[in-house]
């Protein structure tokens, strides 16, 4: 029986000729990742179990990104614990304030993920690197501890949903609209325990940043991972970033899928997800005019250069509406510098936005943009759960950078084409 891309990568990393859906395997890992919230819990478990060795100091990445620059004393103590562990084991890829970025923007940028690799991260959005044709999935802190100690993780081999993309985007539609539309179609558990495997001639129309956004939110459909085929754009992205050998994986012609979803990119409208589930989607046309108090543009979902370019295109020469706070968070230091070189940061500040150093802060209601009671935000982040960005009566509407920027200018949900 044929294998999917995910199954092929898992088989290779488990040292098996083939695997099938449902099989339990133990796979060798190419990278084990953690952040400032999950790594301390992993370290505590690592120490509690009496472990004293890591498998490979070059294959562990620790990125302090959630509560940094530290928002309070307890966060500072967690960062100190992660920092001490990184020093103790001389972890090569340790990123502290000043070098760090939002982990899922930083790891690909630094060349730490490549096609065909198997990666776990103690952060649910680790599925982002599927954009590069890697098997990459979120786990918890104990899995991270085990991964750091052994370079191994256990998996139940997933079955897959094939998502075939066709056609081309119309203006102001991007990767965020694809993934919100898909989650709206299949639901927040539509891909539970499964892979989302992307295919079709529409893939070539997607920039790498679009693919990162799409793979990033695979978890919001319950998926174990999302994965894209490798093409010329992928190879171009990897140039100068990854110098170790890597292997692109294609699905077998007779690979078996549980389901196929076809999305014609040309029919997509700018799409938003209303509170309190990412599957609660509407087109912007259905909800335009809904008042807002805050806009967040950034995160591991939409804090990359193309996202900032799309937002700046709309904000250039315009002002953020009175009564709206617009916070822009370039996801890495490199993205910040590229955005500066292109004049985007100046555009944001002139429009009345606050521009922040990289952090996950507002996405999870940590800092740098927490909401008050009854407030509503349009956010390019990935979750609109109850209480995610503030009190339980605050609301998050998920949207693309273009819709977020247009909404910041209009003071309400707005179609970028109709400003």
């Amino acid at each position, binding site marked *: 029986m044929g294998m999917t891309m995910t199954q092929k990568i898992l088989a290779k990393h488990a040292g098996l000729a083939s695997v099938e859906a449902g099989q339990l395997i133990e796979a060798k890992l190419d990278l084990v990742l953690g952040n400032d919230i999950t790594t301390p819990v992993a370290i505590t478990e690592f120490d509690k179990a009496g472990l004293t060795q890591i498998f490979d100091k070059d294959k562990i990445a620790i990125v302090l990104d*959630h509560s940094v620059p530290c928002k309070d004393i*307890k966060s500072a103590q967690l960062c100190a614990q992660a920092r001490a562990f990184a020093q103790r084991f001389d972890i090569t890829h340790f990123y502290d304030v000043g070098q760090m970025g939002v982990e899922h923007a930083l790891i690909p940028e630094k060349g730490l993920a490549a096609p065909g690799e198997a990666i776990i991260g103690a952060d649910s959005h680790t599925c982002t690197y599927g954009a590069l044709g890697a098997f990459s999935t979120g786990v918890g802190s104990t899995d991270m501890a085990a991964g750091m100690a052994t370079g191994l993780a256990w998996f139940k081999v997933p079955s897959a949903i094939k998502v075939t993309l066709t056609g081309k985007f119309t203006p102001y539609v991007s990767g965020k609209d694809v993934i919100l539309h898909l989650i709206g179609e299949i639901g927040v558990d539509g891909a539970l325990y499964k892979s989302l495997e992307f295919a079709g001639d529409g893939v070539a129309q997607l920039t790498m940043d679009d693919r990162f956004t799409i793979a990033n939110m695979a978890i919001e459909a319950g998926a174990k991972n999302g994965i894209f085929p490798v093409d010329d754009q992928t190879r171009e992205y990897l140039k100068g970033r990854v110098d170790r050998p890597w292997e692109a994986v294609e699905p077998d012609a007779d690979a078996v899928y549980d389901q196929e979803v076809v999305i014609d990119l040309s029919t997509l409208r700018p799409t938003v997800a209303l509170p309190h589930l990412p599957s609660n989607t509407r087109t912007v046309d259905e909800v335009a005019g809904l008042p807002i108090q805050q806009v967040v543009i950034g995160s591991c979902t939409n804090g990359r250069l193309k996202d900032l370019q799309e937002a700046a295109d709309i904000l250039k020469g315009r002002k953020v509406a009175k009564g709206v706070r617009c916070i822009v968070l370039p996801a890495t230091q490199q993205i910040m510098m590229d955005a500066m070189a292109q004049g985007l940061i100046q555009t944001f500040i002139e429009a009345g936005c606050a521009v922040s150093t990289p952090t996950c802060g507002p996405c999870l209601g940590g800092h740098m943009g927490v909401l008050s009671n009854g407030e509503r935000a349009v956010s390019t982040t990935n979750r609109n759960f109850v209480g995610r960005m503030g009190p339980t009566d605050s609301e998050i509407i998920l949207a693309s950078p273009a819709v977020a920027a247009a909404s910041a200018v209009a003071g309400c949900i707005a179609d970028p084409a109709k400003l």
Partner: protein
Amino acid sequence: MKIYKYGDNVDTDVIIPARHLNNPDPKALASHCMEDIDEKFASTVEPGDIVVAGANFGCGSSREHAPLALKSCGVKCVIAKSFARIFYRNSINIGFPILECPEAAEAIQPGDTVTVDFKTGVISDETQGKTFQAAPFPAFVDGIIEAGGLLNSLKVRGVAK
């Protein structure tokens, strides 16, 4: 024992809100457990109580703090129609019992007296006089649970040092 019953898609942000993740001490996590969905939970839950929920329990963030908070509250187990995959593996890895059983999750009501046999996966609702069979764990997973969690199981096998 008491039953706490919730609906579908109980996410890890409501099981333990991110604003409390700066203190991963299990007791501190327990004191805020479920507060954004049920503010009385943390002050009323007692050891041996059972959480019953709908589909996709534990969706969202990978924070292991979520099963840890429930475990630290003394919750005996979670019975749900289905579990989000990261919550599922986190629970196994820390040795917190979870049972996937749509029929039981549907039938059990707050106020019922429920017993669970983890060896057989049989859930008995004594109030209603009904029994249910939860999906059994694969042997591999049983091995992790019996060793007292993932790290211990890896030490027993000699692969973690």
